[in-house]
């Protein structure tokens, strides 16, 4: 299966979804006016990947900013993964945030509260 690589723009994050090691990374800013268009290929890729996933799938979220439209699209993506968790692959989400960024920590905690996938909060000096 092909990897999904999308370069960052001023309003959308860098995407690195690597099929061969099950590492799925979003990095940068996700603030498009309408997040549906941007997230569509991510959903499509996940559908394909889960036909034959790695034993472990690790999602790394390293976002500096994201808007509420993206927060909903991201949840939909996580929900899709949640439905498949434990079937053929074990999924974990690593939520990175800058140490002083309480809002980003809280945003990660929102997903922790909603999802039945383990979400680990990881503080770093700089994303």
């Amino acid at each position, binding site marked *: 299966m092909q990897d999904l690589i999308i370069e960052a723009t*001023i*309003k959308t994050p860098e995407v690195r979804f690597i099929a061969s090691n099950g590492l799925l990374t979003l990095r940068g800013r996700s*603030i*498009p*006016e*309408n*997040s*549906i*268009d941007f997230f569509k290929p991510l959903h499509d890729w996940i559908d394909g990947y889960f036909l034959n996933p790695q034993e472990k799938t690790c999602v790394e979220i390293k976002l500096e*900013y994201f*808007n*509420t*439209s993206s*927060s*909903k*699209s991201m*949840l*939909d993506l996580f929900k899709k993964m949640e439905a498949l968790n434990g079937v053929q692959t074990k999924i974990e989400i690593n939520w990175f945030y*800058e140490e*002083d*960024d*309480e*809002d980003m920590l*809280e945003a990660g905690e*929102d997903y922790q*509260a*909603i999802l039945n996938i383990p979400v680990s909060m990881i503080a770093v000096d700089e994303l």
Partner: protein
Amino acid sequence: MSNNQLYDFFRKLDQDGVMLSYKGFVSPELISCILKIVEDKLNHSEENPRTRKKVYNVLVESLQNLYHHVDEDPNAKDMNPEESRSVVVAIVQSHDAYYIQTGNFITRDHLSALLPRIDTLNLMDDLQLKTLYQERLSSAAISEKGTAGLGLIDMVRKSGNKLEYWVSEINPDCSFLCVQIKISKEK
């Protein structure tokens, strides 16, 4: 505006702490420009990265709210569609806070749906806002426009302050709504 008036305008913007003001149509490109200008100015003027991030976050939601929800100027019959959806935006700073101010035309129906929502959010504490956000995030469907009814909650939650608003009625069917969000400067 004559040259003299322009100087007065400059002094007034300066005295009022206006970082940016804009009147016109809101497009995704315009939003990118405003965000870039404000981010650059904040990088110079604001030392606290948390405050910078909060202003940026609230500004994103505020501008995208305008972009998705602005109604037409009732006096706009002869204007082109872009002009008829003009808004006003200002980002202002005082010694202890930043203010994001927006003004836009809004129909009576939209206004009577919006104001009770703002009033309800303004009465909520941090925990209630967090719970409401999580409920709405997990239950609401995303619209075709990419909205999920989370913007206002997010703005109140991140700013930590109430949304203030003023309504000027233009005619029985349309008003001009001004909204102000305060983001306190952290030490």
